[in-house]
């Protein structure tokens, strides 16, 4: 795969240019309420240097040539940050490489002759839109329920008025790195969204700026999450599938804050 001592100027100096022949089984579904099924594609001459989505581009170009409607799949930035892409590859969200979104997975991770099964993320709260594209709007409902710090434009004090210890800022950033792709939900046997919610909640709840709304936020986000998604039973599949390696620790933060919130919010309510 990688070279020992430099790529050299000429072509194919280090295996560049190798081509794969793959047996693809791709999920096709015309719409949310239509039945779906697999399309078998004999994908020959796939450059090993292309990304997984570029492989699908090539397949689509060939389908168009054959007057077959191309496969619908969600994608945008293709550099692993927007969270738009994501499919099940041989049963794993985003495929075999750890810490890698589908768009960053490259075909050199596969071998000539491999069979690759490509399906949409599967979860009741992520209905299939078409083919490999799903609807993840339930995530936005969780954010709208409390995943923010209320700071209307113009009200902020000088930025250095609120010191944040470096380890707290780093911990918040570890959580905030979540790209909202939904792989955690797709990986979970219960289709739970704990890791996503915990990442968003953890980012805000550990920061000093997030304290005034902390308990309200925890209660609102968790309950909104539960209205859409399944329950967490600590399988840990989510963090394995996460392209940003969000830690299970944040689920512990979520559980702690939710429990405390149930007590604190009730006590506050009784005082009024």
């Amino acid at each position, binding site marked *: 795969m990688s070279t020992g001592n430099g790529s050299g100027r000429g072509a194919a100096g280090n295996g560049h240019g190798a081509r794969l022949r793959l047996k693809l089984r791709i999920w096709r579904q015309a719409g949310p309420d239509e039945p779906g099924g697999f399309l078998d594609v004999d994908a020959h001459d796939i450059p090993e240097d292309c990304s997984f989505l570029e492989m699908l581009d090539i397949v689509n170009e060939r389908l168009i040539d054959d007057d077959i409607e191309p496969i619908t799949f969600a994608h945008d930035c*293709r550099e692993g940050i927007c969270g738009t892409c994501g499919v099940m590859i041989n049963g794993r969200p985003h495929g075999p490489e750890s810490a890698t979104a589908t768009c960053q997975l490259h075909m050199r991770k596969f071998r000539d002759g491999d069979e690759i099964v490509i399906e949409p993320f599967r979860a009741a709260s992520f209905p299939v839109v078409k083919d490999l594209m799903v609807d993840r709007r339930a995530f936005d409902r969780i954010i709208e329920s409390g995943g923010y710090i209320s700071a209307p434009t113009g009200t902020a004090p000088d930025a250095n008025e609120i010191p944040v210890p470096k380890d707290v800022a780093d911990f918040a950033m570890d959580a905030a790195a979540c790209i909202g792709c939904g792989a955690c939900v797709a990986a979970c046997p219960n289709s739970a969204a704990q890791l996503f919610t915990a990442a968003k909640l953890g980012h805000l709840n550990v920061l000093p700026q997030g304290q005034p709304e902390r308990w309200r936020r925890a209660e609102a986000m968790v309950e909104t999450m539960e209205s859409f998604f399944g329950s967490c039973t600590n399988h840990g599949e989510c963090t394995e599938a996460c392209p940003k390696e969000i830690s299970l620790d944040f689920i512990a933060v979520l559980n702690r804050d939710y429990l405390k919130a149930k007590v604190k919010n009730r006590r506050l309510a009784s005082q009024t």
Partner: protein
Amino acid sequence: MTVLDARVPEGPIADKWDNHKFSVKLVNPANKRRFKILVVGTGLAGASAAASLAELGYKVEAFTFHDSPRRAHSIAAQGGINAAKNYRNDGDSVYRLFYDTVKGGDYRSREANVYRLSQVSLNIIDQCAAQGVPFAREYGGLLANRSFGGAQVSRTFYARGQTGQQLLLGAYQAMASQIAAGGVTLHNRADVLDIVVKDGEAVGIVTRDLLTGEVRAHSGHAVVLATGGYGNVYYLSTNAMNCNVTAAWRAHRRGATFANPCYTQIHPTCIPASDEFQSKLTLMSESLRNDGRIWVPRNMDDARAAADIGDADRYYFLEEKYPAFGNLVPRDVASRNAKTVVDQGLGVGPLRNGVYLDFADVIARDGEQVVREKYGNLFDMYERITGENPYRSPMRIYPATHYTMGGLWVDYNLMTNVPGLYALGECNFSDHGANRLGASALMQGLADGYFVLPYTIGDYLAPKLAEAPVPTDDPAFAAAVAEVDDRTRGWLAKRGTRSVDHYHRELGKIVWEYCGMARNRTGLEKALSEIPALREEFRANVKVLGSADSTNQSLEQVNRVDDFMEMAELKVRDALHREESCGGHFREEHQTPEGEALRDDENFAYVAAWDWQGPDRPQELVKEPLTFENVKPTQRSYK
């Protein structure tokens, strides 16, 4: 003939914005709810504007073609955001940031706008910190800074290598709280395909639902476009795949002048394309040039691996040509020189389309561990994409389109020449002149959305207090809806032979070849004959399968490529007319004996705004003269 009035306030540069804020008309708090504002795009500029306007009490409708506002391409910005906080005590000031930005823009921006940008940069950092953006911190808990290209002070705030992501999440969350509060109504997967203008004023938009294909009219008192840049006219760029010029271009066709389309920023350190299948280019942070040495083999037939080539046979072209700045020359200079050596046949890699960025010396000097701590994530990303280990062999890099400085012309209020139509962020032309400095795009997007538009939009709305929005059954809306529907369905009837992507790639090749890093009259004239021919073939022969009444990604894309086909021609004409070199626009005919960009301030110190004359006639040039009362234009030199 359209006349452009920039409406720059009177007074000394430092007082203009304050004076202006006092002189613009206000809408009283109780009346704001009577105004409906349509915000198109939910990146930094759009989301921050939607949130801020709703907080003020306006009724906002926000539109994005994404499934979630959080996916806008602002999210991919890595490096940071500038602000003149002077937290480092190193001599920064509002005036210095203003000065650096005007100079960095090669004296082709509007001084008053840039000064205001620099002023509100202070508020942006406060705002974002209060929202919980996890900026990098020092051990004392205060904010950290780094330095960035084109500046001698450390004024860049950052959140690891994901600053754009964190700022966008902040703006998105602010908007989400307003969605929950009822101030913002969000329309996702809504592709804006036309702007509706009635009696000369913008009164609404036409959208197509990307899931159902439904074409719908939306009406409002004002329309705000925050739809990003036009970098995907090159097909290959660092932009996201779905970035497009359509909303801005449709506004242009409805009368909004398009300014300086030839200004494009090429980023020097991207991973080169590896084959025809390549769909986009990935940027590697510019910081790598601090420690990497850029070279190519001197001999074009040298087939040895990089490590086997001795120093005598290596051509360190930047170090040789620019001994003082070496590998740290500005983006445009580094990019052009890489192109020169590749054009000479000295390029490296399977397609011989890159140059080496070599870390062997720094690894030998400081050890692999030090390099890993500094650049580990970038090296990992490089290996993931190329399959090559940059600790063992040099990276291969090549320049790629990254940002577009041109865009819809706007006045000091960020209003286009169509009353009621505003343009924010990368979508407008106003603040970066002919070249943008690093860490300034995020600053401008948020400045426009959080701190400029909320003040200036009242000036337009206040006199309209008694007016209801134009109803969507008005003939102006009905006509626009019918036009969008016909245009969209028309593609399905072509039954041609080549895919949309095929034509987009072909267009990109022409624009990159003749209107990329370096341009000349012969090439531009060639492009001017090739683009219309390609467009004609595309319109006759493109093949779009499927239906207009459900999700159809080819159909989404074909409208966008169609608009790029027209936009590309204007871009080339603008490049042809500007007989000078400045910033991101390098005309080979106009260079100093040392090969640097040679401006012509006497004849070209103006904004070139192009006025649509109908589909069969070329746009007319309208000039906004630029005057520099504070920063004296000088010639750049990096020798």
